[in-house]
């Protein structure tokens, strides 16, 4: 092929679009290759994005499709029909809800406006290797060369697998996320949750919603729809899962927590996607090779903080850093030169937060978090609040609620663990 590019970016998601945008604006000739019909058509998230890193990566949010700025956060611990909710209302405006498809389309549009060449509907099969270094990509019978390749292919990193650079994904690496988007009247959303016109709610819940398996649920308010979904860690689910995950989501939708919000709604969309589970397990042994930089979910950059997840902003930020590293490499795209990317990433908020919250995954593997503790908490509060004549003393309510579930030393140790890992 006669056309030569300086950089090929695999995947027009948040990471790839950010890399392409930041490179194109510096004058690099960039090919941004996307397998979907349009950017964003193959990706999925829960529902919210942290704004600041995105703003930095794309030089402002301009006409980004922002639905609602999150001002309310809810965390619920669920035990069947009972649940305990913590709600925080603040000044907010740090994160917003949106449709990822539209946001990704906007991000890729920024890259195209900056001069990147977007090529959709093309699947990259593997990396083109020449003299032991990455020299481009291969798609079907076609090859395309470039000086350096940015891999932003997402969690299912088949290109890296086929090129033998990472091990195959196993159940340990990934969780399964499923989501329903339910159309609801805009005014109703604001009335239900006490929200202003552009204000939103983010709600995370755990406990019996995942049938006691490691995982949890999420709920976000979009402009005129609600996103409701579940995440199940596959490692534990293989033996423990007793029914289909879509039945679990269905039950959630018609159950006590959400049915009143969605009863007049219409399901617009149903989606499912893999999610990086344990960042330490999914992270490739290295993020740079000769002629290659790995970004976003393919690099395992999703951060699970326990009470909120973030992946879109970290992906976009990593794309920006990849672009910086390529620019600084000044034509020498050897691994030793591109190592600067790993260094910048490690020293950025992405690297620091990945390190800080690296233990959250282990916490999630503790089954008591999803079974005994929700039962204990709701049992305690039931005794404290629900009585006909005579009330409980706290200590008595606690010891009764705890009976048969979990011992005091166990609670103490688990609490210590939670404290240490969060």
């Amino acid at each position, binding site marked *: 092929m006669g*056309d030569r590019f300086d950089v090929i970016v695999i995947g027009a998601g948040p990471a790839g679009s950010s890399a392409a945008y930041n490179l194109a604006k510096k004058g690099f000739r960039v*090919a941004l290759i996307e397998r979907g019909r349009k950017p964003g058509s193959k990706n999925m998230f829960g529902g919210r994005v942290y704004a600041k890193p995105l703003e930095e990566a794309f030089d402002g949010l301009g006409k980004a499709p922002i639905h609602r700025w999150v001002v309310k956060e809810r965390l619920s611990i669920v035990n069947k029909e009972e649940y305990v909710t913590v709600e925080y209302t603040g000044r907010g405006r740090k994160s917003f809800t949106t449709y990822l498809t539209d946001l990704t389309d906007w991000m890729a549009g920024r890259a195209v406006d900056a001069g990147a060449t*977007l090529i959709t*509907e093309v699947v990259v099969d593997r990396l083109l290797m020449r003299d032991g270094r990455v020299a481009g990509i291969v*798609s079907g*019978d*076609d090859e395309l060369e470039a000086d350096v390749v940015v891999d932003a292919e997402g969690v299912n990193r088949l290109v890296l697998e086929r090129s033998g650079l990472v091990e195959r994904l196993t159940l340990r690496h990934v969780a399964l996320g499923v989501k329903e988007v339910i159309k609801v009247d805009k005014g109703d959303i604001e009335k239900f949750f006490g929200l202003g016109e552009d204000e939103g709610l983010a709600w995370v819940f755990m406990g019996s919603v995942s049938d006691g398996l490691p995982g949890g649920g999420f709920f976000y308010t979009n402009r005129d729809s609600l996103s409701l979904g579940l995440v199940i860690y596959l490692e534990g689910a293989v033996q423990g899962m007793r029914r289909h995950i879509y039945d679990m989501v269905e039950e959630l939708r018609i159950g006590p927590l959400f049915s009143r919000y969605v009863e007049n709604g219409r399901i617009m969309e149903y989606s499912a996607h893999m999610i990086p589970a344990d960042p330490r397990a999914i992270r490739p042994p290295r993020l740079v090779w000769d002629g290659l930089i790995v970004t976003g979910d393919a690099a395992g950059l999703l951060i699970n903080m326990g009470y909120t997840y973030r992946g879109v902003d970290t992906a976009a930020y990593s794309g920006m850093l990849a672009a910086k590293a390529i620019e600084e490499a000044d034509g020498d795209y050897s691994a030793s030169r591109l190592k600067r990317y790993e260094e910048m990433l490690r020293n950025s908020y992405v690297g620091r937060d990945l390190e800080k919250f690296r233990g959250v995954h282990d916490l999630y593997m503790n089954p008591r978090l999803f079974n005994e503790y929700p039962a204990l908490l709701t049992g305690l509060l039931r005794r404290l609040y629900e009585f006909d004549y005579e009330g409980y003393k706290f200590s008595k309510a606690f010891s009764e609620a705890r009976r048969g579930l979990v011992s005091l030393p166990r609670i103490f140790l688990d609490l210590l663990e939670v404290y240490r890992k969060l």
Partner: protein
Amino acid sequence: MGLDIIVGIKYVPNTTNVNIDPKTGTLVREGVPSVVNPHDLVAVELALRLRDRYGGSVTAISMAPPHAVAGLEHVLGMGVDRAILVSDRVFAGADTLATSYVLAKTIEKIGRYDLIVMGQETIDSSTGHIGAQVASWLDLPYVYYAIDVEYTGDGFIVTRELEDRVERYRLAKPALISAKMYSLEPRQVTLRDKLRAVIERPIETWSNKDLGLDPNCVGLRGSPTIVSKVEFTPKVPRKNIIFEGDLREAVRKLVQALVEEGVI
């Protein structure tokens, strides 16, 4: 002896996820992604196979609003050589007669062609009119349900497949055929062709300035068809009876129930 082929495509809402507004009877297109009519992709595949076999070129044409460029990019990505988007506000609201007139005039203006290939019908209206009407406007021989074409130099031998038989027709060129739906598996977009589509952009846009057609013969004004009413087939309530127990007994009860319902 190359073959110059014109293929017609329509960019349509993906009707597998379209809802119909029960009040207005129109498609709710909001947020529904568009695709190239899948039956047209069979036509594109047939055209590309003929070009690959005999040499020549494939030109895709579409009468549509500007967003249909994405559909033309898709078929260019499959290997179509060149594309023409015929787009003008005066063409809007056209029925099949006005549409086929514009397409026929577009083809006349292209001038050099040996064969026109169309899809059997579209997934959003399913009239199957366009092929026959364009052939009438251009006074061309027309065969539909075509599954294969052999080029003989001065014409074609077209194989068409019906439910109970296969027929062969000898056609003088130029000719028009419509490809039988599902008869071929359309090829995937390739990197090489998509790259060419994006970089060289071999897409022309023609408006009525280029065609110079009488506004009374195109668009809404040139369309004698009126959709007076849309009725929906009534939803048949399901009885949800489960016949359990001994297989023979269950089947006997099922048959009895069907007889009582007047089904058999």
